[in-house]
């Protein structure tokens, strides 16, 4: 902590004294957990599909340094820079998402992936944080009394994102985007009548998904009554937790991961439960809670509506994803394929999360004297 004197006014020095170092440490610990669990959870998957055991580990490890670099670099930007970055990322990502509909490879019944020169990326992951920042900007502008129809524009932006996502289809991602948008709107002072209206709309959407998408219906049915269908995955995941007990079997000593589908992504939390045990899992939950709640607590002093809304959007996205993933693995909610931030395997997810958390770190930096962002 003494690497940079307080008087150091270089970019790095200023960054060091203004950034939220505790959250940064928490993020670093999360990344370390992620590396540890990729070592544990991906070899069985690799073996199952005939690759050498450490194929995914290597791919993930290669991406960790650039991810950290992106996180740090983005966190050095000021709010205006974040806004500009978001515009660029949003534009490119939205274009690519639309492109997936046309040329994307169909995996498990959905077109979410795009092959770019040997790399396979999921552009919607990048769309999420950029969307949160841009929506925040639009909501904030509504309150500037210059007649700008910010709320309407934000609504349009949301629709522009939701339509291609639902066409992929990626209901989970769409739900997160909608939730972020709703949370921001809520914070921006949405009237209670409207809150009720959107809540009903969300519920209606859920009912629509239940009636129109058979796989959603089946998952909800199986959550309500496990005997109504194949509950193998969730049973196995619960066994993993039970098997791990208080202190876990030890890293690499897990056995359930060998038979647990999606052990490396949607159910990585179960692998953590078996190998690292209850205590480590609680620490993991604590880390997510710490980042989210610390972020919210800092917002209480925030003087800039845009920063407040953008930060909240990013936090909601991050926290919601963690809660949904862990809730699914623990059978608290119907299984919903969603990555556990920084822990699940996935290159696009890792880089996009680094981008999002870089933005978060940038927005939560203490800005003394140069208050809020301009338009």
């Amino acid at each position, binding site marked *: 902590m003494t690497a940079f004197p307080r008087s150091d006014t270089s970019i790095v020095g200023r960054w060091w004294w203004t950034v939220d170092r505790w959250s940064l440490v928490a993020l670093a610990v999360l990344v370390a957990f992620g590396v540890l669990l990729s070592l544990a959870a991906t070899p069985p998957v690799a073996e199952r599909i005939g690759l050498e055991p450490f194929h995914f580990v290597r791919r993930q490890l290669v991406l960790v340094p650039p991810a950290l670099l992106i996180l740090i670099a983005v966190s050095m930007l000021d709010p205006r820079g974040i806004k500009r970055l978001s515009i660029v990322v949003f534009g490119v990502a939205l274009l690519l998402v639309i492109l997936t509909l046309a040329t994307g490879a169909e995996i498990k019944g959905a077109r979410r992936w795009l092959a770019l020169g040997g790399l396979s990326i999921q552009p919607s992951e990048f769309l999420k944080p950029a969307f949160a920042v841009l929506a925040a900007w639009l909501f904030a502008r509504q*309150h*500037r*009394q210059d007649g700008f129809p910010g709320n309407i524009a934000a609504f349009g932006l949301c629709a522009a994102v939701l339509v291609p996502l639902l066409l992929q289809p990626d209901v989970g991602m769409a739900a997160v985007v909608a939730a972020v948008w709703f*949370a921001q709107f*809520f*914070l*921006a*002072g949405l009237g209670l009548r409207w809150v009720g209206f959107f809540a009903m709309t969300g519920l209606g959407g859920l009912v629509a998904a239940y009636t129109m998408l058979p796989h959603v219906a089946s998952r909800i049915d199986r959550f309500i009554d496990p005997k109504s269908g194949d509950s193998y995955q969730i*049973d*196995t995941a*619960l*066994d993993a*937790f*039970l*098997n*791990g*007990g*208080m202190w876990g079997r030890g890293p690499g000593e897990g*056995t*359930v991961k060998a038979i647990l589908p999606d052990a490396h992504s949607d159910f990585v939390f179960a692998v953590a*439960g078996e190998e690292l*045990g*209850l205590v480590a*899992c*609680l620490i993991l*939950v*604590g880390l*997510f*809670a710490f980042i*989210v*709640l610390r972020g*919210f*607590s800092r*917002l*209480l002093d925030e*003087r*800039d*509506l845009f920063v*407040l809304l953008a930060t*909240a959007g990013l936090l*909601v996205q991050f*926290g919601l994803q963690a*809660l949904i993933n*862990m*809730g699914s693995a*623990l*059978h*608290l909610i119907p299984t919903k394929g969603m990555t556990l931030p920084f822990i699940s395997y996935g290159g696009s997810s890792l880089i996009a999360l680094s981008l999002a958390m870089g933005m978060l770190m940038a927005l939560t930096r203490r800005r003394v004297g140069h*208050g*809020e962002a*301009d338009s």
Partner: protein
Amino acid sequence: MNAPLRADQKLVIEGSGKQTFELARTRVLIAGVVFALGFLTVGARLVDVTLLQNGREPRLASAPPAAALEMDRANIVDRNGVLLATSLSTASLYANPNLIIDARDAAAKLAAVLPDLDRGELLAKLASDRSFVWIKRNLTPRQQFEVNRLGIPALSFQREERRVYPHGALTAHIVGYTGIDNRGLAGLEQSMDEALRRAPEASAPRAKTGEALQLSLDIRLQHGLRQELQRTVAEFDALGASGIVLDARNGEILAMVSLPDFDPVDAGTAEPEQRFNRNTLGLYEMGSTFKLFTAAMALESGAVGLHDGFDATQPIKVSRFTIKDYQGKKRWLSVPEIIMYSSNIGAAKMALAVGGQRQRDYLGKLGLLKASTVELPEIATPLAPERWRDINTMTIGFGHGISVSPLHMAAGVGAIASGGVLHPVTLLKRPEGVAAPGQRVLSPQTAEQVWGLMRMVVEKGTGKTADVPGYLVGGKTGSAEKPAGKAYRKSALISSFVGAFPMNDPRYVVVVVVDEPHGTKQSHGYATGGWVAAPTVGRIVARMATLLGIKPQGDKDPAQRELLLVTVSTGGKKGAPF
């Protein structure tokens, strides 16, 4: 942008936006509380799932991970690659009684398909409130099919491995056996358990790479040895017998049989006597066969020469013991005669001439005072006197007052046969082209002199029945009374023969020990080593010779005559030191 604009903005926010900010802060608090509750729920659920499952057993039996380690246990093969132990994958039937709809019906159906199961027990198992019960391990494919056809959903199969011994009892004492969880419980299965199991660092299981544990055994010799021993046991109505064929040049055990034996698949039901490996675990006072060692150490130490001898007219009386000869010649006997006629008096005097300390040293060098280094877990440490007095020296000179295993005898005689080098005995095939480890314990000259004595015993002495024309068998008979408390039982003998062939350049050692044989009409009522064990060795040699393709030597072969240079000096000559 520029300063005035920023001031303007600030005004905007603090003006009409003040209300907005108050609301936003309240709502940030609400969102924070919602998330905090979410994380708390997840944490509570974690504790619930990991620790508080009301004693619910995991739906997955914890057996599979443990059993998985026991998969692909390596094969065991003989020196020619013949399979002695292998693993077959089988299905084991288990049930989750919680899922049983009608336990009575299920038990009835199962009992019909698997008739060896007790219906009452089955019902008790299926009606229990556990979630895992074994029904039957290691089903045949047909049984598995029949069970599947019942269509009872609570029944499942666990893939397992079952150890199979294609040769059954033939190698039971050596290969040993495993328990139901494929852990070695006896024999090499136990002592080599680690090696047989999947090597932890190897990515592929041993069995899949074709790597098997190769033994020194030759299953053909093993079979011949067992058959001949069985015949002897039957013929003389013996309690049991044991036999060893050893390659003296490198210490490899080519065959080793202990009777009675058992089927390793049913090891659990075998009697202790059946599981007992006489060759390595049995300790016997071997009697006269020990005289070979006495002669060897006497000649090696220079205590006597081949043409020296001892007076054997009178029994020796030492305190309460009397050492006498069996069918003694009652005259002065030369060293070759002492061996040939198996004189206890002569051997005792010869041992005394060597001296207790030297005797002890030589026996130690021959490996007769400590446990064998063979790879089996079932090994015994010889029983030797702690205080080595003169009486001990004398009795040990003719093989009493010391108990060793038949394998000790084979190894010791192997050292003589190999020309004086003791090779540690092994059940594992020695790598080709690598000199076997060994230690010189006798000079080649001494060894050759003892070869002559051994050949003479068969040609002219007590071991005539061991002879096989053309194969120059040599050896020594032994007939020891079995100890019973402090005395010996005259009627109960350990009859043995330790042999080697061909005596002009011995390679193979054959040891046969028969426990309590009874005389027959053919043996004129005798049950001694010469009548019981020696002919068995002769038959074994004859079978080995054809199996191994050893060329017989003609009677006129110079090698034969050379051996007989050990001429027998008889009578007349006096001047022995005793």
